[in-house]
């Protein structure tokens, strides 16, 4: 498994502002991911954070709205930009463990936009 931490654990933000969420892993991992879990809905992949290259975004998610950094093999950030109430959600990072392609999740960041 992996020990994954996220900061902040929760936040309440004003419309139009931005929030950066941090994800720290206790060991080096090749692949890190960011997911969103909206109230009453399933988890949805936002993007894959690639170390040394730009993130790969899923359909419906764009870099201007969700810029991602991956400066090294144990750390990544997700920024939620120009927030609106529709961005209220839980944001989760996950890491991939070889060789069985298992993904382990962090505790999540609960974001409320007012």
């Amino acid at each position: 498994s992996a020990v994954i931490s996220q900061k902040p654990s929760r936040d309440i933000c004003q419309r139009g502002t931005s929030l950066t969420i941090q994800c720290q892993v206790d060991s080096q991992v090749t692949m890190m991911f960011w997911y969103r879990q909206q109230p009453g809905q399933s988890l949805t992949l936002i993007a894959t954070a690639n170390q040394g290259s730009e993130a790969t975004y899923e359909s419906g998610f764009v870099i201007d709205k969700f810029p991602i950094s991956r400066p090294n093999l144990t750390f990544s950030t997700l920024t939620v930009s120009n927030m609106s109430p529709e961005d209220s959600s839980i944001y989760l990072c996950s890491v991939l463990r070889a060789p069985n392609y298992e993904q382990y999740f962090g505790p999540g960041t609960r974001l409320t936009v007012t």
Partner: protein
Amino acid sequence: EDQVTQSPEALRLQEGESSSLNCSYTVSGLRGLFWYRQDPGKGPEFLFTLYSAGEEKEKERLKATLTKKESFLHITAPKPEDSATYLCAVQAWNYGGATNKLIFGTGTLLAVQP
């Protein structure tokens, strides 16, 4: 389109009353099927990965099975501490090769009463 459907949405059991949760999936090619447990306010906790039809895995009171169209999570003699949301997710092969994206169902909320 790859899709995962879980049933029932919610299940209430008495302590010791065994039951099963269902996960039906439609994917172009199954790379792996994953079961997670999620407690309120926490990230998903990895339980099992299944890779091929006929495969079974067990952990304490939980047993996961896989066919070509669905997976079952059997809970034997559940205890109140088994109360949680159980999530099913699939990874698919696509024309470009393997994808690490997890496609989640909406989960089954299990409540075990003492």
